[in-house]
């Protein structure tokens, strides 16, 4: 490969200047290298949060596996519920492979809902990696529920849920509880799921969910002590894009199974479509890495290759689960599939959700 390029390059110099102008791009295409340069990884969230930790975990591996071993620095651009940093990326990033964006569910949701602050378009970008996650819904034994088989007990009870806001990731449990016909009172203004879990532990709320790693760390001890009862998970998407049980919690049913237990048939219809769209954007395709619009296929390929190499790196394999939880990160085809499922929504489903937010929760997106 290398000798071939050299020959081409030598040949190029022999040609006339006019031809050289076109042909010079050929060797550059074959050999993408970021040697001596700095890659900026824009994270539209503040330092210390989940997305920041995720990026900072991956950054040194990228440095090791990207061609030319460039410096990879994480640049935090928080604000506007992650819309500010993402807008900035759209506005300023050059398609040279030296600026990438890391998004999260909170970046996808305003886009899907048509928030006026969104000035970015997912479909313009090239997805290079997706990091899925999952989550578990649990309740307290005080509700009279000992396992998911007693789910019917929850119907008709007044359940209380501590929410970060109707347009945050907590939209997914709202849509799920609605589908299941649970009567849940949402109390807003919590700063994170950790905050919500503390409220659950105090007994102020009686239903809650945590992402998988936080669940394993902080709720499993509660379950063992008999203070919490796991109900169901958000599930994952299998290779065909169908909902399947979460491999981290194979014993727990997914929302769809619970629905079937209660109603005798699998969920369908626009409300379920809405749940599916936001569930994918919020969990299965939670964190994604993008290159800006107009990036050449060679550069995209170089980035994907870097991630393929990272996934093979024993050092990565040894530490990924501790830091990011049990879900592997994916690139190529699976990443593309998750990206499409997590960033596309029919306008009917969007209108339905926006309308529900407006009438039931007083959320006005267009200010």
């Amino acid at each position, binding site marked *: 490969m290398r000798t071939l390029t050299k020959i081409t390059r030598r040949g190029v110099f022999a040609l006339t200047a006019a031809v050289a102008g076109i042909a010079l791009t050929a060797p550059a295409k074959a050999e993408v290298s970021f040697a001596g340069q700095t890659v900026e990884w824009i994270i539209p969230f503040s330092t210390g949060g989940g997305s920041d*930790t995720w990026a900072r975990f991956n950054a040194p591996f990228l440095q090791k596996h990207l061609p030319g071993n460039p410096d990879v620095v994480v640049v935090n651009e928080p604000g*506007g519920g992650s819309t500010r940093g993402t807008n900035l990326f759209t506005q300023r990033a050059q398609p040279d492979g030296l600026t990438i964006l890391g998004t999260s569910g909170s970046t996808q949701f305003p886009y899907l809902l048509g928030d006026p602050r969104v000035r970015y378009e997912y479909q313009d970008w090239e997805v290079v990696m997706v990091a899925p996650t999952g989550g578990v819904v649990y309740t307290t034994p005080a509700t009279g529920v000992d396992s998911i088989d007693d789910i019917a007990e929850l119907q008709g009870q007044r359940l209380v849920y501590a929410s970060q806001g109707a347009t945050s990731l907590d939209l997914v449990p709202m849509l799920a509880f609605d589908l299941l016909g649970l009567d849940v009172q949402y109390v807003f203004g919590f700063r*994170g799921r950790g905050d919500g879990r503390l409220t659950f532990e105090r007994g102020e709320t009686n239903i809650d969910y945590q992402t998988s790693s936080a669940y394993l760390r902080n709720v499993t001890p509660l379950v063992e002590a008999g203070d919490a009862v796991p109900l169901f998970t958000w599930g994952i998407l299998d290779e065909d894009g169908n909902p399947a049980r979460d491999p981290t919690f194979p014993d727990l049913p997914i929302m769809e199974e619970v629905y079937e237990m209660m109603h005798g048939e699998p969920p369908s219809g626009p409300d379920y479509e809405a749940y599916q769209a936001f569930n994918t954007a919020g969990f299965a395709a939670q964190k994604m890495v993008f290159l800006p619009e107009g990036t050449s296929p060679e550069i995209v390929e170089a980035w994907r290759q870097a991630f393929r190499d990272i996934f093979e790196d024993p050092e990565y394999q040894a530490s990924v689960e501790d830091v990011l939880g049990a879900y592997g990160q994916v690139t190529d085809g699976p990443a593309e599939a998750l990206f499409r499922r997590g960033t596309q929504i029919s306008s009917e489903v969007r209108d339905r959700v926006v309308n529900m937010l407006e009438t039931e929760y007083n*959320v006005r997106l267009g200010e």
Partner: protein
Amino acid sequence: MVDVFLSALAEITTLKHMSFLLVGVMLGLMVGVFPGLGGIAGLSLLMPFLYGLDTTSALALLIGLVAVIPTSDTFASVLMGIPGSSASQATVLDGFPLAKQGEAARALSAAFFSSLVGGIIGAIILTGFVLIARPLILAFGSAELFMLSIFGLSMVGVLAGRSLVKGLCACGIGLVIGSIGGAPATGEFRMVMGIDYLYDGIPLVIVGLGLFAVPEIVDLLRRNRPIAADMRLGSGWFAGVRDWWRNWFLSVRCSGLGAVIGAIPGLGGTVVDWIAYGHAVQSTKDNPRFGQGDIRGVIAPESANNAKEGGGLLPTLMFGIPGSGAMAIFLGGMVLLGIQPGPSMVGANLDITYTIIWSLALANVLGAALCIALAIPISRLTLIPFQLLAPFMITVICLAAFQATRILDDLVALLVIGLIGIYMRRFGWPRPALLIGFVMAPQAETYLYQAVQFYGWGFATRPGVLIILAITLISLWIGMKARVDDSAGVAMKQTDPDAPAPSPVAALRRRWPQFAFAAFAMGLFAFAISDAMRQSFLGQVFPLTIASIAAVFGATVLVMLLFSRDAAPVVYDQEEAPENAAEKGVRSLWSGAFWIALLVALTALVGFFLAMLAFFLIYLPVRARTGPVKTLVLTAGAAAFVLALANALNLNFPYGQLQDIVRLPWPLR
């Protein structure tokens, strides 16, 4: 139990652990000295070192960094009147007047010694507290947290200055500004006027710098003298240690207060220093000079803010909920290291918890020792003529303000809040009261709403709520008897106390600037009320209530300004103070503000770095009258400093119009 203690003790006393701790302390010192930069900048600086380290060494680095920031941020608070970080805001009130009186070294060493003691006492309290912390933290539900935020607000009574009604009005301004942005209950956006920047609310850093740093810089810029007016440094650090010794019990009490309040997640570390300061004021009987350079006003917040970091560790370790900004960073670092916070930290991993707590104490000792050694040389800064220091300070506060959200709007917001601060200072409106209102507004609103949702209005009869209510009432009662005056260093007005009140027309003619500022506050309340009218019930109830109450106080101020005698506490204009009349060559209030505005305007045009160069090249010859060589040397020095800092922290500077047109290489972009 004993073996857990011993293994933790053995861990921290190893040479390796100590040396990593020391490196962390040094890094934290560098970050903390720079005003406005806190834990977040620290972590960015630390990241390159963190990789490839084993867990204990990396932890030592992190702890060293986190522990020393509330110690070293005192430099900026005392020497420049700029809050070094949100934990040192109260230190400015008395620390800076002390520096102006030429006692910078004394104030610094008392502060560092208090920090040292605070850190150690915090660790001692935590050693026992760790075992009962979980049930205790769980006992603080939303109702109790709401009552605690009311307790925080009650400190306004102490900090209101000469005129209580102005204090309440200032607090109202703070509450209104603090409720800009998304409503906690519904997420609807209040008072944003379609400006993207306001959707998230105005950052605390901006409000702190705008209220305290900008007015002081502007005031100093009007005069031609150094910060320390009488050109002496005071009797060095022994004096400060003696001061601490005379007030050791105050320091111990504030440390305890800091550790406990820091341990309660949700209240945030931002009020700890104010509560400690308020406590010092309330409990001081003999000869208080608070606001004008009382060393107790330095000892109290500095003892509390170091103890607070220890307290903040508890919810971080046990629930994964950071108790303060620095702890958020610590949490991020822990997760990267693969240490999972959770109940196991008081179970199987108790030894790690103790290693962390005691490392914190040790880092406090190291940090305080280094700072004390540096106190006297660094305090010489106050002897430099201020015209030379000013461009550096203006650059520094702009750079610090820009760390808030990293857009130009940060600087514009700084300028606007700065103007409010300048006029509050001039007309004797207490700035701490505004800050407390600002900090407590979102807390009070969120917790009130949540408490009502969870318990109904019956939440008010919960035992925890009643206990905190009783403490608040006692504190208010004591506070009313000992109020602080924040118009630092200004002699009392030389007016005839028996002079009759002027006619309203004459009063208006003479006092129109004060009248105009009070009218501005009224305008703000009216805006808040009209904006609230357009929101849903849950979104409007809080701003509507507070703005209406504040408007009553505002109207009272206006009426009093019309009808009061000259000697009334509500009537105050620094421009008429004897100090100003006596000093020669004092420039207009606007001259100082002009220079800051110039830098902001230039930044909007050509981006921060080029603007800074131009600013130095204009300012130095015009205002400081330096020769061409000195001008170039100082400009180059400042540029090198800013570049080195930006490079280490991987900062991008604010963009200007120029950067929108052409693509420039770093640092010009």
